[in-house]
């Protein structure tokens, strides 16, 4: 019972990383997708290099860089938790950006034209007509990313954040048994069941149109 309580405490930290990442990485991803689609080659170049690096290097390495680099370069110290959240946001925003780009580019040109002809401003066209349809289309790939994110939070042990996986590892070596790790595995699985349910509910909600 004590183990479960310890793990739940660790889970709170995991969930904080999870929630903060989503809250910031989704809007940031949307902004990066605009940059990637920009006609300005400097903006689209920078964003595509950014996406390429974030997707092309291990997240665990990015965690280490965000945590250690500031102290080498500026002699400034970043907290473990803060570093973990920043690294996750930067990494996930790159994936979300590509998902949004795909979603935005899949909306037929006629939707933009119809909005334009009806006198909508560019912003109105995007927020009233394009974005709602994009959200419906990107839900399946986004749910993939969110499920991966739940599991990826375990990586922050690399910079010593005390979240659920770390707690389970410590407990496991203390009692010389894999049982704590197994229980943690069940907890991750349950979290992802809830995530998958939430997405399937959202998809059903948006099923009223095609």
């Amino acid at each position: 019972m004590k183990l479960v309580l310890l793990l739940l405490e660790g889970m709170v930290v995991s969930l904080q990383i999870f929630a903060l990442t989503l809250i910031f990485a989704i809007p940031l991803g949307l902004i990066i997708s605009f940059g990637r689609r920009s006609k300005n080659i400097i903006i689209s170049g920078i964003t595509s290099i950014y996406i390429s690096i974030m997707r092309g290097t291990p997240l665990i390495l990015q965690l280490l860089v965000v945590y250690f680099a500031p102290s080498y370069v500026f002699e400034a110290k970043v907290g473990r938790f803060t570093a973990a959240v920043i690294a996750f946001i930067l990494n996930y925003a790159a994936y979300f950006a590509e998902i949004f780009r795909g979603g935005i580019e899949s909306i037929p040109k006629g939707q933009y034209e119809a909005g334009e002809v009806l006198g909508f401003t560019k912003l109105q066209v995007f927020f009233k007509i394009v974005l709602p349809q994009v959200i419906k289309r990107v839900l399946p790939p986004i749910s993939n990313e969110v499920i991966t994110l739940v599991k990826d939070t375990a990586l922050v042990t690399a910079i010593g954040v005390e979240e659920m996986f770390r707690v389970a590892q410590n407990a496991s070596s203390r009692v010389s048994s894999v049982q704590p790790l197994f229980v943690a595995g069940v907890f991750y699985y349950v979290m992802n069941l809830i995530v998958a349910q939430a997405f399937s509910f959202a998809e059903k909600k948006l099923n009223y149109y095609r």
Partner: protein
Amino acid sequence: MEMIKATDIYKSFDGNVVLSGISFEVNKGEVVAVIGPSGSGKSTLLRCINLLEKVDMGSITVEDDVMVCTNAQGRAVYADKKKLREIRLKIGLVFQSFNLFPHYSVLDNIMTAPISVAGVSKAEAQKAAMELLIKMGLEDKANAYPCNLSGGQCQRVAIARALALKPDVLFFDEPTSALDPQLTNEVLKVIRQLAEEHMTMVVVTHEMNFAREVADRVIFMDGGVIVEEGKPEDIFTNPKKERTRAFIRGFIG
């Protein structure tokens, strides 16, 4: 009275000339049919007047507002954004592929522009939208979504959506080309009804019988120029130009 006057319009895409010196006008209350082979520039002409494309050269005036004119260097100069928005609202456009907003109900499709663009109150917009739906014979579909409608019903909703902004002139870009003959008829019926109400309309169409019956004037375009224009009976029974004759013969057989 001239409602739209376009003079010497030139437009090319990547060196491919689509409109080479088109001039025409639309008078108030008139129905103009634009016919011609695919790729003759008919749709591009409509899209230029609707500001979906920008002309390379030429001038367009809508009522008394100058949309675009050509300066001494031969370049097209457009009016400022605010003016263009004003002009745009005077002209409605109905697309070949309807382009309804799939995430909005039929009623919302019609109401959204009056509310967010013209600043009409929600209650008023809804009342007007219902009236338009009754006119289109679709009052029972107010809460349906476009994915549940037939093509003909979609196109009638699209017409209602364009009419909701009370445009002075309505453009149709091949409104029935995506429809089978039966659905085509229900859409043509609506356009005919609008013609009886003296709505000013420009219809790009391949429906020759419809053009003949409904249009006050027919314009035959080919290769980016207006080859011939005139009353439907002249164009269809007694065309002056060989190209027109060949085209019409191809249709009537």
